[in-house]
Each structure stands twice: as structure tokens, then as C-alpha cells.
């Protein structure tokens, strides 16, 4: 860059022999800048601008700058943020997945005001920021004015007016005279670079930006692919969370050093001594099911003591559970039967007499089974009467049956005299 252009109106700009971009004039104070701007505007120029290190108040009307549309854009963005967030909240919490919290309506404005407010501000704020740059056509890192060393002062303490050669009524001499007459301390011509390719972004930089942008998409492409395809490799666990835990699988041998747990390494543990496995508790067929091999048991099980107390117990239980139908004498005429006759119940069948040959012939085991599971219209009593009591009833039944077919020999000799 040349430095000798401190004097007035140099013939060639600091950029050398390239085409003329425009002229640049410097002023000392904001007041002078405003006056000069009025003059340039009155002269009818359209492609020109002022440059100052801070916004000079009063310059906008002097230059005839019309109000920017930015506030309208920001307002529209705010409305879009508000409307968009109402839709968002309604759709997500009330429509797509109605989410009931504490019995409140799925959608109501008051509960959502903070979200709506913040969304409005967010969208409006982002629009205000990017709107400024979009309307200002920035970022644009390259500007012909930057070729002038004098122009460095535009961000420090210098006040400038630039008129572009592209202006329809631009004539270099006239423009320079106008600016000088308006009080410029210096006027210089700004030339473009002689090489037209340098007016644009250099190709390598452009290529770099484009390639970087494309490469930046590659990870996203891989992610997108991974989401829709299957692979034979296990998934990548960036954060393992609880995916991997120290644990023992069934039938595995696992020895953890110094751990008192499972010193023998056997993961499937044997049951504690004396444990009865499920389903193996009632294996005595004779006692629990009244069977001896595949046949009904004809004897009483060993668990049952055949004595007077068992007989008394059987008597008591018979009178409680069996006598209501079968009768205390076992003939089948219990109180329920009597009642059925009294009301002439059409469905009632007389209970079987336990003295019937079909019953007396049955082995002990079959009687036990009948008490347990019932027969024909008689229900089972296994839920009410435990095994021992059922056997006691069978014992009492046998005595009752015998009582109806007793022979004189059955009566003890000292009591035989009372017969007849």
C-alpha cells in the first residue's frame, strides 16, 4: 500500500491502476459530515454512503435514509414465535400425547405462559440479530474502501463520505469538487484491484468453505444411515449407562476374587438343607389321596391312630359336615333333606344312604376320596376338612355302617343281656 496520498485529490488511488470504485472524502467533525451529506444528497447522488466510528445523530434525515423494515420483521417473528409455540405446546401435550397432570386440562393458556413468552422473545431476538446483518449485507469481509489507509480512521475518529462510480450521474471531477467544497479535509479516489478475479472471494477460500460445509454433513449422514440399517456389530456404547454390569448368568461359573460370595464359583446354588422343593410336599399317596399303588386303599394310613379319640373326632366332624344331608344315622334323611321335602323342591335328590351296599363295599380310600372331591351332586370337602379329620370321618363311617348290620356277637358279652 502506498502512503504518499496525504495531499489533495491524487490521480491514482492506493490500489494502483484498477478501475475506479469511487471517491472518498474525509471530514473532521460529525457536524461537518452532516452538512456535507446534505450537499451530496441535494446534488442527487443515490449510490453513496457516510462512514463514522459511531452512529451520528441527525445524519439519517440529512442523508434521506428511510426507516428500516427491521422492526416489522422482528414483530412478525415475535408473532410467529408466539403462534408456533402455542401450536407446539398444544400438539405435544394435548393432542399427540394428552398429558394429564394433577387433573388439569391438557391445554390451557395460563400454565403455558412462560413457554409462550420465552419462545416469542427467542424468535424475535434471533430475528433482530440476524435481520441486522442480512439487511446490511454483512458479513462481507472485502470492501474496496479497506484499501485506503485513511479509511482505517473510520472506526476510530474519522468521518467519511464515499460516492460510488456506479452512480448514474457520477463524474469524478464533479464529485471531488462537491465533496471538497462541502469542507472535506482530504479527498481520494478508490480503485479496484487491477485483477478482476480478486474482486471476488478467492477461489481456494470459497472451495475450502464449500468442502468444509459438505464434510460437516458426513457425520450426520452416518448417523442417519445407522438409524435405518442393521449391522452385525454390537452398538457403540459411548456412555455405557447400565449396559454392562458385574453379574452371574445361570449355570455360569463365576469366582470373584476375595469375595465371600459363592466361593465355590457355582452360580446356581443348591437348596438350603431340609428344603422341600415345590410340588414335592405331599407325596404320601396313601395319606393324601387314599391310594395304595393304583388301587383304593383298603387300610388306614399309618399317620392315623385308630383309637377312641380319633373315633370321637370323626363323630364330631361327621355331625358337623356330613350329617346335615346324610343324617346323623347316615340313612340320608338329614335336616336339609327334610326341608327340601317340606318345600317340595323339584331339583332335590335324596342323599345316598351310607348303609347302601354300593357304599359299604367301597374301600377306605374311595370313601376318603369322595369326602375330598365329592361325587355327583355332593361337593368336595377338602378345603374345609384337613386330611387327618377326613380319615377320622372314614373311621367313624365304618363304625356307623357296622352299627346297622351288627350281629349279636358284636355286642360285648356283658351288655348282651340288654338286647331284647
Amino acid at each position, binding site marked *: 500500500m502506498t502512503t504518499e496520498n496525504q495531499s489533495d485529490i491524487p490521480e491514482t488511488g492506493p490500489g494502483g491502476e484498477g478501475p475506479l470504485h469511487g471517491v472518498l472524502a474525509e471530514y473532521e467533525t460529525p457536524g461537518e459530515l452532516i452538512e456535507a451529506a446534505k450537499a451530496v444528497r441535494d446534488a442527487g447522488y443515490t449510490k453513496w454512503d*457516510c462512514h463514522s466510528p459511531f452512529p*451520528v445523530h441527525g445524519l439519517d434525515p440529512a442523508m434521506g435514509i428511510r426507516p428500516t423494515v*427491521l422492526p416489522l420483521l422482528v414483530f412478525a417473528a415475535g408473532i410467529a414465535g408466539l403462534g408456533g409455540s402455542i401450536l407446539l405446546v398444544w400438539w405435544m401435550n394435548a393432542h399427540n400425547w394428552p398429558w394429564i397432570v394433577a387433573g388439569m386440562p391438557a391445554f390451557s393458556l395460563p400454565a403455558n405462559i412462560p413457554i409462550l413468552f420465552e*419462545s416469542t*422473545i427467542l424468535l424475535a431476538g434471533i430475528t433482530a440479530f440476524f435481520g441486522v446483518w442480512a439487511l446490511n449485507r454483512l458479513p462481507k469481509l472485502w470492501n474496496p474502501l479497506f484499501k485506503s489507509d485513511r479509511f482505517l480512521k473510520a472506526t476510530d475518529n474519522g468521518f467519511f463520505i464515499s460516492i460510488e462510480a456506479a452512480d448514474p450521474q457520477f463524474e469524478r471531477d464533479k464529485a471531488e469538487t462537491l465533496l471538497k467544497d462541502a469542507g472535506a479535509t482530504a479527498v481520494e479516489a478508490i480503485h479496484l484491484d487491477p485483477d478482476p478475479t480478486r474482486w471476488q472471494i478467492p477461489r481456494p477460500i470459497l472451495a475450502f468453505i464449500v468442502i468444509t460445509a459438505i464434510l460437516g454433513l458426513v457425520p450426520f449422514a452416518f448417523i442417519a444411515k445407522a438409524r435405518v440399517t442393521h449391522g452385525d456389530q454390537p452398538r457403540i456404547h459411548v456412555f455405557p449407562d447400565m449396559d454392562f454390569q458385574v453379574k452371574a448368568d445361570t449355570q455360569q461359573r463365576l469366582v470373584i476374587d476375595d469375595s465371600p460370595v459363592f466361593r465355590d464359583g457355582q452360580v446356581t446354588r443348591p437348596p438350603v438343607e431340609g428344603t422341600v422343593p415345590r410340588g414335592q410336599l405331599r407325596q404320601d399317596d396313601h395319606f393324601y389321596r387314599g391310594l395304595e399303588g393304583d388301587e383304593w386303599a383298603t387300610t388306614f394310613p399309618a399317620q392315623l391312630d385308630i383309637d377312641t379319640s380319633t373315633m370321637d373326632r370323626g363323630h364330631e366332624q361327621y355331625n358337623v359336615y356330613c350329617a346335615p344331608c346324610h343324617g346323623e344315622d347316615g340313612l340320608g334323611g338329614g335336616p336339609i333333606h327334610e326341608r327340601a321335602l317340606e318345600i317340595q323342591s323339584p331339583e332335590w335328590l335324596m342323599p345316598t344312604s351310607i348303609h347302601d351296599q354300593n357304599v359299604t363295599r367301597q374301600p377306605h380310600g374311595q370313601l376318603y376320596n369322595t369326602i375330598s372331591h365329592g361325587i355327583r351332586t355332593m361337593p368336595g370337602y377338602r378345603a374345609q376338612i384337613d386330611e387327618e379329620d377326613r380319615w377320622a370321618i372314614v373311621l367313624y363311617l365304618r363304625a356307623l355302617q357296622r352299627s346297622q348290620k351288627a350281629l349279636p356277637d358284636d355286642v360285648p358279652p356283658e351288655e348282651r343281656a340288654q338286647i331284647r
Partner: protein
Amino acid sequence: MSSASEAKHPAQEFNQITETVADVIERPKPPKAWYVAFGIALAMLGLLAVSVYHLLTTGVGVWGNNNAIAWAWPITNFVFWVGIGHAGTLISAILFLMRQSWRTSINRSAEAMTIFAVMCAGLFPILHTGRPWMAYWMIPHPNEMLMWPQFRSPLMWDVFAVTTYATVSMLFWYLGMVPDLATVRDRAKSKVRQIVYGILALGWNGSARQWHRYERGYLLLAALATPLVLSVHSVVSFDFAVSKIPGWHTTIFPPYFVAGAIFSGFAMVLTLMVPARWLFGLKDIIKESHIDVMCKITLATGLMVGFSYGAEIFIAWYSGNLFEQYAFLNRAVGPMAWGFWIMVTCNVLLPNLFWFKKFRTNPFLIVGVCLFVNVGMWFERFVIIMTSLSRPWIPAAWADFTPTFWDAATLIGSFGLFFTLFLLFIRFAPMVAMAEYKATLPAAHAGHQKG
């Protein structure tokens, strides 16, 4: 302000501001104190890195949080840091709308403080989630779980408020900085600085047409940031006020929190700015009158906070609610009463020293009082969270809290992050809004004649 410009040419005056501010980032070496401070800050940042690593590889159990006091220190720190940020936005947006031109000397650094404080704040709830890599679940997005956020939860409001606040603050900060970055670009001697600041300045050339839109945009952002800053700490207070816990469920919380936030934020601005103006020779720009005004605001907001404490206690008594009364009695005389009295001393009593001019002019006294205010404001959040959570409705659920080493390490570490970023900002970015500052000088106005 006019006395300085009497003998000088306007151009000299403008240039002097550029020189003074740019010198901070252009001098070959910062002052020794900067290196010392930066070293300490980096060490604390290292502590943060170790704490976070330990937390992530072990789990939130490394903190003292328990079943009753689930929020404990992390949320205390979050509310503390978010509050710090508020002064920055207040200075840059609200005082801008009120045309308080003295704000131009401190608004840039206060905004930077806001952004760094919000970063520190954001750290804690994210870490507090336990699995921070799932934090994106808080952002509404289509997902394979077919789940949407619960928008009626105050915690969700928090996510929206704090992210919006962080975003808008950053945009506001950068928008304001572009013309100054252009100044630094135009003064840059080395190629690296020219390129880096050149890109950051976006090609700004001070065009009047661009200034026009820029000023509009700046005004709009200020107008948007003003209700935003008031909403952020209100929303943070909803985390407490909307829940039905004694000591939390009160309508005074939003204004009380906002006042407290501005109070703590101004204390932090003073803590940072008083040493910085002395260290970097900015005494002509950040004037004593500016410090004085900030001390007065700190006093005013401190009185508001004190009034809120009083109002809270009065309402607890006046409500006739046994649980509410117990909550406040427990604060003042319970097992954590020491926290309550530290809070009262630092936030209510000590700021009253700013009634005296001596305390508003002596830098050591200013920083001293402000450090106490910062401590007190941390304890305010500590008291609110700890006392209420440790004494819920059912006495069987009562619990006490013991902080762990990692609780303290993470808090100290967050200060490391804050100071590291702030010291880097001072060294590499224009810490005073030069363009704005120049525009407030008498010489910037058209009627002003050459000196």
C-alpha cells in the same frame, strides 16, 4: 463530562478513547496481576474439570444430596449464578432504554459477565440430572420413545427461560461488539490479528445506512431483553413458588428473586470492575461517578431484598399457617440458623455501609462489601433450599445435610470457569463499548464546535 473536552479537538477526544480501550488488548503483555489472577483461575478451572470427571464416572452420589434434600448445592449454585447474570442485562438493556449514558463504560463487561455467569449456571442443573448426556431430552424433538416434554412443569419453563436468556444475551453482546471489533481490526498490526478480528468484525465499515439498521436492531434487542431478564429469575423462582413446600409456596418469590438477582449481579460487577479499571488504566472511562451510581443501586436493591425478607416473615406469621410459621422459625433458630444470620448480615446489614460516601469511593471498601454481598446471596439460596427441603411436611422425612469435598470443589471450580473466561475476555475483546461511549460525548453531537 464536558470538562475534559474543553481544550481538545473532537478527533483527539475520540482517538483517546480508542487508545485507552484498545491498549488493554494491544499492549504486548498484560499486567502481572492479570497473570496471577489467570493462574489462580486456571487452577480452579482444573478443579472443576476433575470434579466433573469424578462426578460423571462415579455418579451424583459424590455430592451430599440425599433423598430429602435432592436439590442441595447444585441448585443453590444454579440460582446463584443465574442471579449474577441479571445485572449485566439490566445495565445493558434497561439502562439503555432509560438513556442512562453512564452505562456505556461498563455495559460490555457486564454483558460478558452475564454470559459467563449463565454458562456457570447452566452447568449445575445439567450435571444434576445425573446423566448429562441425556440433557437433550429437555429439548422438544421427535424421538423413538415417543415422548414430549411436560410444558406445564416449572423445570421445563426454566429450560426455556435460561436457554432463551443465554441466546439473547450472547446475540446482544456480540451485536454491540461488532463495531468495536472493527476498530481493533483496523488497528491490528499482525496478520493473525487482522484475520481473526477481521472475520469477527464481519466487514463492518461504519456505513451510516448500516448504523441505521444496527441501532434499530440494538434498540429492539434491548426492548426484548428487558422483559426477558425480568422473566428469567421469575421463572427460576417458580421452581420454588409453584411447589407446595413450606417456605417456598409464596407469591412474593418472583419480585423478591429478581431484586436479589440484580443486587448480587451489581455486587459482582463492582467486584470485577473496580480492580479492572485500576489494573488496565481505565479510570478516565469507568469514572468514580459510575462506581458511585452502581454502589447506590446495590444499596437500593439490597434494601428491597431486606424488605422482602421482612415481608416473608410477616406473611408467615400473618398466615396463621403452622407449617409456614415453623419453616421460618426453623430458618432463624433451627440447626441451620447460622446460614440465615450470615445471609441477613451480608445482604441486609452490610450494604447499608453504602449510605456513607467513604464506602462508595474507597475501592477496597467497595470490593469488601461486595464480596460479602456475594457470599450473602449464595447463602440466601442455600437457606431457602436447605431449610425447606430438610423439614418437609412429614417429620419422618426430615433429614440433615452434610456437603462433601466434591460439592465444594464443583462450586469453587465454577468460579474458575467464570474468572478464566472473564480474564480472557478482558485480554482479547474490547471491554468498553468504544463506539457507544464516543456517541455519548458532547463532541459527537452536530451542534458541537471544534475546540
